[in-house]
């Protein structure tokens, strides 16, 4: 009886031990791969054009240096990015790294606690205040995205067409229109490739491109924010007057011409001048088989100071609720490094690094654009900081106004009047 009980007892302990061993083994079994497993960081972005550059250049370069961290680049269509990102962040399904739009879109994400503050990040030391302005709180105390690149506005031209028709890249406004007239007279080429269908072309490549010359860049932009100038002042209406003159030089049916249409029109060699942002360079290099050149927005009189829009455009932030924060910080430090700046600027000619590193670029067109930084005064797009915070939204209204002005359905004065009224309706310094 006793022996039997002992036997049974031993059997019990045996099974217990076996169970424990099994349990431990299972746990180890789970833990084993988990420890060896790499952390995968997902990058949210609107740059679906850059997918191959990330996959072939940037991600391998980072992963080679940082074993154990894998990256996945997950872009959305540009027009849907903001809406999609907001929904993902609210649902908690957004990636670890978030590509930041400049100014208010990202600022509101930070204020809602979706973006982590990053001003203490090691890599942040490599950026100046202007570079950080797009992704800092209004008082500049907190920065929440690591600046990646800016874009510069100007005009890209078909050099072969210019040589054929016999025009030089213009420096002044008069020379600009003289060149357009000559190309139009010649008739081989459409003088300027731009359409009003998508509206933002007219505002971004038109108004914000030639505008800084008239409102004197930062001087005018800051005066507008402080309420010392109004959109109805001459220096803010004049760009619209210039835009109204463009109509005669655009292609047939430009009203229904979309942004890709304009790009194709130029790269197929059918148009001579393309009002551009520097982000076009990489696409154009790939598609155009003629020689291209670029000229800065023309100045009113010979010898005037030139102004360019050197707009902070893209940065990278960290999902404050992401599970892999340490790995994400490692990556963001790399984004602030010289290696990233060089790789990015050369993989994507036309996206110019915002860091203090000396970045060497190979592309001649990109070199031309970036050379204006030394010759001209830089500013950012006038509507982006603070002024597009309310309703009606100044940036979106400017799209509409610029398109209307080019089409001639609204006079420059009426458009400026409307913008000023809209801005004054919610922005106190302008009341």
């Amino acid at each position, binding site marked *: 009886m006793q022996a039997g009980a002992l036997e049974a007892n031993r059997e019990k302990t045996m099974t217990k031990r076996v169970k424990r061993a099994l349990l431990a083994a299972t746990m180890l079994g789970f833990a084993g791969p988990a420890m060896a497993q790499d952390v995968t960081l997902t990058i949210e972005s609107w740059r679906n054009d850059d997918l191959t550059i990330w996959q072939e250049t940037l991600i391998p370069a980072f992963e080679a240096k940082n074993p154990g961290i894998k990256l996945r680049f997950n872009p959305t269509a540009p*027009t849907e990015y903001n809406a999609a990102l907001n929904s993902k962040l609210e649902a908690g399904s957004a990636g670890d790294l978030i590509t930041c739009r400049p100014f208010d879109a990202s600022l509101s994400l930070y204020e809602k606690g979706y973006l982590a503050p990053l001003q203490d990040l090691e890599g942040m030391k490599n950026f100046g205040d202007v570079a950080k302005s797009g992704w800092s709180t209004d008082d500049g105390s907190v920065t929440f995205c690591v600046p990646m690149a800016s874009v510069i506005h100007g005009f890209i031209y078909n050099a072969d067409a210019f040589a054929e028709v016999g025009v030089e890249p213009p420096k002044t406004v008069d020379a600009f229109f003289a060149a357009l007239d000559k190309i139009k007279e010649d008739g081989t080429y459409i003088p300027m490739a731009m359409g009003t269908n998508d509206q933002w072309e007219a505002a971004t490549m038109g108004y914000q491109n030639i505008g800084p010359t008239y409102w004197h860049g930062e001087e005018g932009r800051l005066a507008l924010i402080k309420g010392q100038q109004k959109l109805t002042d001459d220096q803010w209406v004049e760009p619209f007057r210039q835009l109204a003159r463009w109509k005669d030089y655009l292609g047939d*049916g430009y009203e*229904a011409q979309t942004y890709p249409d304009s790009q194709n029109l130029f790269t197929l060699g059918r148009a001579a001048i393309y009002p551009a942002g520097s982000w076009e360079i990489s696409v154009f290099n790939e598609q155009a088989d003629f020689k291209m050149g670029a000229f800065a927005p023309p100045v009113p009189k010979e010898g005037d100071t030139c102004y360019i829009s050197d707009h902070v455009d893209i940065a990278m932030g960290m999902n404050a609720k992401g599970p892999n924060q340490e790995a994400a910080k490692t990556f963001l430090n790399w984004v602030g490094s010289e290696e990233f700046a060089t790789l990015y600027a050369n993989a994507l000619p036309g996206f110019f690094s915002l860091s203090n590193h000396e970045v060497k670029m190979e592309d001649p067109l990109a070199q031309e654009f970036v050379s204006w930084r030394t010759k001209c005064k830089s500013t950012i797009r006038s509507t982006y900081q603070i002024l597009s915070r309310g309703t009606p939204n100044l940036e979106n209204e400017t799209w509409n106004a610029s398109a209307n002005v080019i089409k001639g359905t609204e006079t420059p004065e009426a458009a400026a009047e409307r913008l000023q009224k809209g801005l004054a309706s919610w922005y106190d310094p302008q009341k």
Partner: protein
Amino acid sequence: MAAEQSTRPPIRWHIAVFLAPAVLIYTAIMILPLFNTLKLALYTDAQNAQVFIGLDNFRLLFGDERWSEQFWNALGNNVWFFIIHMLVQNPIGILLAALLSSPRLRMRAFYRTAIFIPTILSFVIAGFAWKLILSPLWGVAPNLLDFVGLKGLFQPWLGKEAYALTTLALISVWQFVGIPMMLIYAALLSIPDELLEAAECDGVTGMAQFWKIKLPLVLPAIGIISILTFVGNFNAFDLIYSTQGALAGPDFSTDILGTFLYRTFFGFQLQLGDPNLGAAIATAMFLIILIGVSIYLFGIQRRLRRYQF
């Protein structure tokens, strides 16, 4: 005892049991979200907390000059969009159905399929295909017009305020004309032959037969199509968004309630989304559709005469 039990009707549990899955699923995915949307419209976002503000969102939407202007513009465009569908899509649908049901027509199945195919296409495909066809740069439309000597008539239709909305409505008609056609076709086929033979004996043939016999008999089907068109048009969004973008250019001339809702709810470019005001617009859309459907149900459908065969 036994007699008493038998007089009381037993509770018929099976009805509830059989209804439960549909009711539960419908409640979870339709009714709750609907009421949540209505609720969302009564709140606003203040420092990341939802605050109850009563009808202030509606006051802003209808009282503020800018918002109300956009709203009425969108509503007006939507009404025009609907009118085009009623005037073009449905009569053409009826005509096609009448032709298809004609006994002398050959290759009927082919026509039926060919006309119905655009309906199953995605909005995006239809939108982009037409955008390319009508493109002043690479489209076939200018060339085709040139071919018949009417090049002068060509306009960049999608880019002009005066034509863009009508053009888009016609594209939508092209895509969906198959639906009224099929419904009316089915209704026409269900008319008994004896009736038509009797009509023929009375000397009612051809066009007169269509107007006097067939059309009155398919009126209930036309009523259903009208209401489907109404609901579909006032909920429309995809086609405008895929061809003109969220800003519904040129100069908001193609902005309908759906695109206006999208822009407000999700935001666009630098404009941040305002889900609460968006919900107010959604509520207004819901009420408009509710009123429209009610007018139809109580004002029209009850007066339609139905014939039993």
